[in-house]
């Protein structure tokens, strides 16, 4: 317990590797050799196209995937050796809200909290408070989740994570696919988390503006590697041309040699080609 509060870094990854077997003797490498540190209270963004390994990274930290090699430490606890200890201090929000569809938001939330040892009596007032603060109509807490909009479901997913008071939040494309209005709301909520909850955050996204606006440091991820990692300001300086400060999109282009859209389009094309060959 004390160890956790004394740890200097929320997250420390050294040379984390993961590959998945596709067929016999055929592997896809999701993480080549990833090293990254998130200091306490820091928000670090991972910016990368589809398939670059962001979700695998988040799953390795959430103890859902065991890495093939490397070191994963969360508050100085080895996540591979002591997953149970790590699990108490982290929570995660992913692209899909992932709830029991027919259960209500209240039911989903008190269930989610109980898995972390939080009783009804402790969670219910907190649920009302959090839902109130995200503008959720409390008259709807007993409606099935599936009746709620995607944006609302995503906010409730954030509420579920907050209920367990995580010290490290893993956000895996929390705003992807949301309408602009919900996107803004969710981003505001994330911004609020660092002020009110004293949490460190790892935020994966493929939205440049989101990364720039919310993160202290940004890592650019491509094909299972983090190829650059720094503050937005330093990244822009590093890749400036003719004394002109580039925007983050230009930084991404300079670092990877192509725009996010081009990389994704190319990848899609390759996959279609492969599928066509079969």
């Amino acid at each position, binding site marked *: *317990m004390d160890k956790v509060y004394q740890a200097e870094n929320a997250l420390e990854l050294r040379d984390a590797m*993961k590959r*998945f*077997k596709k067929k016999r003797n055929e592997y896809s490498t999701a993480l080549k050799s990833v090293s990254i540190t998130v200091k306490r209270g820091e928000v670090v963004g991972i910016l990368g196209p589809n398939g670059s390994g962001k*979700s*695998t990274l988040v*799953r390795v930290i*959430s*103890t*859902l*995937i*065991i890495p093939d090699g490397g070191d994963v430490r969360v508050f100085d606890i080895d996540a591979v050796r002591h997953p*149970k200890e790590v*699990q*108490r201090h*982290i929570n*995660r929000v*992913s*692209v*899909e809200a*992932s*709830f*029991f*569809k*027919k*259960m209500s938001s209240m*039911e989903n939330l*008190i*269930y*989610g*909290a*109980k*898995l*972390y*040892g*939080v*009783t009804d009596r*402790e969670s219910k007032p907190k649920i009302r408070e959090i839902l109130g603060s995200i503008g959720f109509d409390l008259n709807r807490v007993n409606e*099935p989740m599936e009746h709620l909009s995607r944006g609302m479901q995503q906010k409730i997913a954030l509420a579920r994570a907050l209920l*367990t*008071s995580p010290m490290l939040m893993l956000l*895996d*494309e929390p705003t992807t696919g949301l309408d602009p209005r919900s996107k803004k709301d969710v981003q505001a909520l994330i911004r609020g988390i660092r002020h009110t909850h004293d949490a460190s955050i790892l935020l994966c996204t493929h939205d440049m503006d989101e990364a720039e606006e919310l993160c202290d440091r940004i890592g650019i991820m491509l094909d299972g590697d983090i190829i650059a990692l720094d503050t937005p300001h330093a990244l822009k300086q590093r890749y400036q041309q003719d004394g002109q400060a580039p925007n983050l999109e230009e930084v991404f282009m300079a670092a990877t040699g192509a725009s996010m859209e081009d990389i994704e389009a190319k990848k899609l094309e390759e996959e279609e080609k492969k599928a066509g060959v079969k």
Partner: protein
Amino acid sequence: MPHLGKPHWLRELIAVWGFAQRNYYLTKRYFWWDLVWLVYTTANALSIGFIGVAAQQSAETTSQFTTFLLIGTLIWSYLSMLFDILSETVSWERWEGTIEYTFMSPASRATHLIGTSIYAVIYGIVRMIIMLVTISLFFDLRLSDANYGAAFVVLAVCSVSLVGFGMVAAVMPLLSPEKGQQVTFIFGSALLLVSGIYYPIDVLPGWMQALAKVSPVYYALDGIRAALMEGAALGSLWRYIWPLIIMGAIFPPLGIWIFQQGEQFAKRTGRLKRSG
């Protein structure tokens, strides 16, 4: 952060309650489906009862045969329910899309499976009582000498083994998301075939009889039939109870252990879930 200060056992206990309560919520939300399923199972039991009535001539043997069949139907509907709920632990959550959130929570796998079992037992008993009442309205059952207490003890001991069986079966979808549930299904139908639910196992080929001897359902049925139809005392049921106690002591810990191995395998190979 009040939950972080709680002792470990208390957090696990709260989580056990969480799993049981979640399954209650699901039953509530899928109530009409559960009701339809109960009606179907009850109709099925009744039709089997009528087979008994049709097959025999004298009133005495009819009542005996019908009682034999209906005890089998009822006990199987309860035990297979336990098996199904446990063995669907993984596939259900995969379908809902919640599996990663369950597996990244600090609740232990034992807690997860025990919470699920507690709910399954309560749910199964409620269903069985409803079915029993319905059935007894239709048939003249031979239960005048019944020793309900002894039957209950046999059923309770058997429930523990079935829960363990279900846990072992639940691991299949972790090993193979595509084929796992099918294997589970085969497992369940093998239990149905060899355990002597609608017939004494002596009518089976020898190798099937051998399989019956490792099925907890077989001991439960024979023991419960002896208790209900002949009023056998608990002491004389010992030969059914001790194999059940042994299986009950082996299967659940084995089930949890196998499940944990399956979980490690799924986490190494990325089979828990893959999307996003």
